[in-house]
C-alpha cells in the first residue's frame, strides 16, 4: 500500500441564505488547494460527496464543478455519500498508482429543506417511510435501547453535550457552543424522549475540502503530513429491528480493519449526530477513557449533512498537523442509527 497523507484542509459552516451551494463551496475549495501547495492543475484526481435530495434538485453536484475549475477536463468522480467516502474513493485511486494527489470536497445546505422529512426518505420505502418517522424519533428509539442495555442515564448523555459545547467554543466552525451546567441541560424538557434538544444535532450549512497526496509528494508539500495509516468502511443491515442498535458492529469491524488499536491514540473525532451515539461508537472502537473525544465539538455541534464526516477527518488532521497529538482515529457515519461507518487512523510524521 502506498503512503497517503492529508496535506491541507478547509471548511466553512454557517447559514448565509443569499449564497447558493457553489458560492459556499468555492472559497473552501480554493483555500484547500492554496494551502496544499499544489496548483489546481497539478492535482490529479477530484472526488466529491453530496446528496440530490438534500439540495432538492437532481444532479445537484454538476454545478459544483464551477467551484473547482474543471478546465481543461479533469479526472473526476462523485459519490452520493458523505465526503468521507469520496476521500476513500480518492485514496483507492492513489493506491492504483494512476494518480499521486487528489482534491476531495463535500457540501450540503441542511437549511434548504426540512431535515426531519428529508431524512425519513432514507428508510425502507415500503414499510417505514410511509409512516414518516423523523430522524430525531428514529434516533430516540436507539437511545432508549442503549440506555436500557448500558445502564447509562440521560446524565451521561448530557455530559457528552456539555463537554462538546464547551470544546466547541474553541472551534470557529462549530455552531452550537457555550458553557452549560449539567443540571441546566437536564432541566430542559425532552424533545423526543429520552432525547433533549442538546442531545440532538444542530443543523447548519457547510462545505469542506481537503487535499491528499502520496509519499514523497506529500513530504514535499507540507511541514507535517498527516498520514492515513488505515482506512476502512462497513455497513450494517438496514432494518431497524434486525440489528442491535445499541452496538455498532460495522464501526467495530471497520475499526479493526483500519488498525485502530495497533497503537496508542491521542484523541478521536467521531461523527455522532446524537449524544448517545458517541457512547455507542466509543464502545464499538474500544477506546479507553484516556482518549479525548471530539476536541472540535464534533458533529453534534455542527451537523452539516454530507460533509460532517469529512470534517471529523479534517479536524483530526488539523490537530495532528499543529502538533496537538500524534495519532488519532477519525470516523464518519451515514444512514439511520449509524448504519454505515467509516474509520480512518491518522498519524503525524
Amino acid at each position: 500500500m502506498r503512503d497517503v497523507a492529508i496535506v491541507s484542509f478547509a471548511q466553512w459552516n454557517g447559514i448565509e441564505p443569499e449564497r447558493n451551494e457553489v458560492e459556499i463551496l468555492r472559497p473552501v475549495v480554493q483555500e484547500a488547494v492554496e494551502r496544499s501547495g499544489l496548483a489546481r492543475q497539478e492535482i490529479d484526481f477530484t472526488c466529491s460527496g453530496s446528496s440530490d435530495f438534500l439540495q432538492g434538485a437532481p444532479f445537484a453536484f454538476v454545478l459544483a464543478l464551477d467551484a473547482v475549475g474543471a478546465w481543461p477536463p479533469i479526472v473526476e468522480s462523485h459519490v452520493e455519500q458523505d465526503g468521507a467516502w469520496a476521500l476513500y474513493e480518492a485514496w483507492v485511486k492513489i493506491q492504483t498508482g494512476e494518480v499521486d494527489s487528489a482534491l476531495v470536497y463535500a457540501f450540503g445546505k441542511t437549511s434548504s429543506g426540512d431535515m426531519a422529512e428529508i431524512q425519513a426518505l432514507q428508510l425502507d420505502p415500503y414499510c417505514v417511510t410511509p409512516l414518516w418517522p423523523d430522524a430525531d424519533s428514529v434516533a430516540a428509539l436507539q437511545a432508549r435501547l442503549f440506555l436500557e442495555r448500558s445502564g447509562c442515564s440521560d446524565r451521561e448523555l448530557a455530559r457528552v453535550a456539555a463537554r462538546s459545547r464547551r470544546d466547541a467554543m474553541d472551534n470557529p466552525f462549530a455552531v452550537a457552543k457555550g458553557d452549560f451546567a449539567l443540571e441546566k441541560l437536564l432541566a430542559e424538557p425532552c424533545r423526543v424522549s429520552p432525547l433533549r434538544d442538546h442531545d440532538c444535532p444542530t443543523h447548519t450549512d457547510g462545505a469542506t475540502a481537503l487535499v491528499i497526496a502520496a509519499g514523497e509528494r506529500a513530504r514535499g508539500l507540507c511541514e507535517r503530513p498527516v498520514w492515513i495509516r488505515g482506512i476502512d468502511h462497513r455497513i450494517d443491515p438496514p432494518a431497524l429491528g434486525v440489528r442491535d442498535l445499541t452496538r455498532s458492529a460495522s464501526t467495530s469491524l471497520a475499526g479493526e480493519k483500519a488498525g485502530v488499536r495497533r497503537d496508542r491514540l491521542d484523541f478521536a473525532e467521531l461523527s455522532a449526530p446524537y449524544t448517545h451515539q458517541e457512547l455507542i461508537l466509543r464502545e464499538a472502537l474500544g477506546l479507553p477513557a484516556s482518549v479525548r473525544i471530539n476536541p472540535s465539538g464534533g458533529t453534534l455541534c455542527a451537523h452539516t449533512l454530507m460533509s460532517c464526516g469529512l470534517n471529523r477527518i479534517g479536524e483530526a488532521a488539523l490537530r495532528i498537523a499543529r502538533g496537538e497529538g500524534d495519532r488519532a482515529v477519525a470516523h464518519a457515519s451515514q444512514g439511520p442509527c449509524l448504519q454505515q461507518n467509516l474509520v480512518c487512523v491518522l498519524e503525524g510524521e
Partner: protein
Amino acid sequence: MAERCAVVGIGQTKYDAKRIDVSMPGLLREAALRALEDAELGFGDIDAVVVGKAPDTFEGVMLPENFLADAVGATGKPLLRVHTAGSVGGSTANVAISLIQAGIHERVLAIAWEKQSESNAMWGLSLSPPFQVSVVAGAGGYFAPLIRTYIRRSGAPEDTGIRVALKDRQNALKNPYAHVRIEDVTFEKIAGSPMLWDPVRYLESCPSSDGACALVVTSEAAARSAPRRPAWVLGTSMRSEPNQFHRRDAVNPRAGQLAAKDLYQQAGIRDPRREIDCMEIYVPFSWFEPMWMENLGFAPLHEGWKMVYEGATALGGDTPVNMSGGVLSSNPIGASGMCRFAEAALQVRGEAGEHQVDGARLALGHAYGGGSQYFALALFGSERP
C-alpha cells in the same frame, strides 16, 4: 503498478417500462444473482459492493443503497454509492475495477440500477429551481439543439438519425433483455414516428426503462478459478468538464476526446478504427452515434455520419456499434452505462448470443452523462494483458 482485473460474471435484468413484478431489492437481486451465477460465486465470496444509480428523485428514496444493503449482500462489507449522472453505470464499474487494481479486494460486485417508473423520469430530469427558465423539456429538449448544431457543422444528411435508429432497433431483436423490441421496424416506421424535439423523432429516442446490471470483477488470481472466459480490463478512463463556459464545444466535448485518448494510450491502441473490434456506446438519441464516432476518434471531424451511411457500424460492418440495441432500446438511466460495459465484456467472452460479433477480441464500453460533460470508458479484451 495496478493489479490486473477481469470481469468474470455478468448479469442483466429484463429491461422494461415498468418492472412491477419486482420491488427495488428484487430488481437488484435479479441482476446480482445472474452475475454471481455466471461467475459461479455466492454473495459470501464478494469482498465489497459498489452501487451506482442516477438521481434519487427517480425513485423517491434518498440514498437507497442504505436500505438495499442486505439485498445486495453488502452487510459487514464496504459499500460505495457512485453518482456521476448518466455516466454512472460506467463510473461505477470503474470504481469497482479500481478496488481490484489497487489490490484492496479480490472480488467486487458492481451493480448499477434504476427503477424510474416509481417516480416520473421526465419530471425528474426537468426539475429546475424557480429562478431558471423552464423551457428545456427533459433530456431530449436539452440535446436536440446540439444535434441541430452537429447537422449544421457536418452537413450530415437529415436521415442519418433514422438509419442509426433502424440499426439499433433491429439489433435489439437479437437481445432478449432489451426493453423496446419492434418486430416489424422499418425505416418508414421510424421516419413516420412523431417528431418530439425537432430533429429528434420518437423512435430515434431512448425509452424510460426499469432495470439493473451487475458485474463481478476480480483480481487475476481469482479470475483463474472463473468457470468461463474472463473479459480482461485493458484500461479505464474518466474525464469531466463544466456543462457550460465560454466557447464550450458541447457537440464534440474535449472531456470525451481526452478520456478516449487516455484509454487508448493505456491499452496501446494507435488506430481505434482498425484495432477495436466493436463497441457499446451511450447513444440515447440516435444522432449521438455519428457524433461519438468523431469524438472517440473512429472518424475524422464531420465525417462520423459517413460510417453510418457505409454500414460500418452495423452488426456485420467493420466497426459494429451497439450490437445489443443500445440505450435506444433500453434505458434505465443509472444502469445504462454499465450495460454498455457489460455488453462489451460479453462480446470478448464470445457470449453475446445472437448479437455476437464474430471473433471480437477488443471491445470498447462508453458512457456519458450530464450536459455531455462526464465520460467513463473501459476497454475489454479476450486475452490477458
